[in-house]
């Protein structure tokens, strides 16, 4: 692995993995605790429509994905706020329509010869330095936004109604969260591709949630796990000449199953405090 670092593409790949890890660890934490994994999947896949648009009209694919996934995220946020019962169906439809649109637009694009697989499964080994800068900027923006609204986002995630009663602008924050998911999707498509984004968003927070005392800790552990997954995945990819995105996901998935196994072996420490509840005394 060390000798691989002499190649610029390898250094870039590791940096891209690191930057994507920060993004996915932070945003994935909110995705998991808010149970919006399905919406995130929808945004990630519908983003393919943005790739189609970009190629068809000949603008930068990043702009295409960014614009389109932000639009899809806004629609999905609106739908899930408005009609909660049927939201999953509509999200599923948008998910499929976005992908279909992308495929058809690419069919219609003359002389199209871009490797479709690289968008579906990522191409971390070909991340140019200019993209790293963009990723760094997006990371910075997201970290700043999340730290500014941290307590609001926590209260929205834990108890939306209570937050609303306390005057937290929950609807605006929900849209903001969706926009940040869209941004993370755009970023991570480079690293693991849009099919596999969901793994980096969900697996580390799922594992971290069990031993974290706060969302901040959960984000921290998730970022660390993501760094571990992307680095080890890259090493497998380099050593055994495997597709990088899929290798990263397999490392993450292995840890995911190990964590579930460990949870089974070590039963929860819950219930230990049991019935020793002190009574409330009035007149204190």
């Amino acid at each position, binding site marked *: 692995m060390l000798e691989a670092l002499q190649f610029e593409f390898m250094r870039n790949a590791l940096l891209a993995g690191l930057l994507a890890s920060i993004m996915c660890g932070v945003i994935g934490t909110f995705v998991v605790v808010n149970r919006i994994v399905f919406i995130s999947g929808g945004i990630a896949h519908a983003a393919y429509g943005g790739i189609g648009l970009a190629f068809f009209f000949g603008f930068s694919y990043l702009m295409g994905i960014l614009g389109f996934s932000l639009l899809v995220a806004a629609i999905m946020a609106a739908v899930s706020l408005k009609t909660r019962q049927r939201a999953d169906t509509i999200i599923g439809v948008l998910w499929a329509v976005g992908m279909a649109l992308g495929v058809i637009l690419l069919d219609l694009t003359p002389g199209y010869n871009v490797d479709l697989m690289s968008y579906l499964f990522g191409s971390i080994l070909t991340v140019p330095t200019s993209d790293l800068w963009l990723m760094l900027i997006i990371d910075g923006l997201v970290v700043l936004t999340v730290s500014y609204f941290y307590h609001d986002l926590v209260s929205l995630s834990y108890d939306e109604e209570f937050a609303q009663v306390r*005057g937290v602008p929950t609807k605006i924050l929900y849209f903001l969260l969706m926009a940040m998911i869209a941004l993370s999707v755009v970023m991570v498509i480079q690293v693991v591709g849009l099919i596999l984004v969901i793994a980096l968003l969900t697996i580390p927070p799922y594992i971290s949630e069990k031993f974290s005392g*706060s969302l901040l800790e959960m984000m921290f552990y998730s970022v660390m796990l993501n760094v571990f997954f992307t680095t080890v995945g890259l090493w497998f990819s380099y050593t055994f000449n495997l597709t990088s995105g899929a290798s990263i996901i397999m490392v993450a998935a292995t840890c995911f199953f190990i964590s579930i196994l460990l949870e089974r072996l070590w039963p929860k420490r819950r219930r230990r405090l049991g019935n020793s509840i002190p009574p409330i005394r009035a007149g204190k």
Partner: protein
Amino acid sequence: MVSSPVIEVHGLWFSFNGNPVLEDVNLTIHPRDFLAVIGPNGGGKTTLLKLMLGLLEPDRGTVRVFGHSPREAAGSIGYVPQEIGINKGFPISVRDVVLMGRMRGGGGWRRFSGPDKIAARQALERVEMWEYRKRRIGELSGGQRQRVFMARALVGEPKILFLDEPTASVDQKGQTDFYALLKELNENVTVIVVSHDLMVLSSYIKSVACVSQQVFFHDAPEITKDMLEMAYHCPVELIAHGVPHRVLPKHSGE
């Protein structure tokens, strides 16, 4: 009335998916009232509460809290939602849950100040949960969690306290303690509680609102036969003071 009302509801109508839930509700709640909101399931009790909290918008009519919209009055409202055990896996400590009650909305780098933390401690001590402050909220029992939610409502020093089925997951002893605390708070705070347990409630409340699409307000701590019949649309019999009602056999045939 000497003092101006805490809550005024005027000609309020609310429907959900085209089905009327509340019709022409008029309700005036005065300071230091202890109001029990009762009624059949699906009668609109929780909906009425959420309208007064500003969580729902009425189709018609107005809700005024201290003469303002519920949203503007947010600072003087305390809310204890129903404990239905959602989000148990959420990584958050008891203390952080209580601090949420000090939220003032709208971002900020440093949210919780020294006074916030002191208030959180006092609120937790008041419900005897301070020693659990570092626990994850999901590790507590339903009754303990309910007390933490109580502390979260109290930490904002509310002038009105809304409670939705606050003792649903609390045992008999816990319920009595809980209502004793409410009674004590009621010396300064208006309390509005949605509940089934009329038995426990009857010794604390000052007025009753029966909700069953319409709202019947009774400015006395007793539940009359007329109210129950109007609210439940069935012939009832009051067995003893505080006992809700018994449906007479002649009505039970379907």
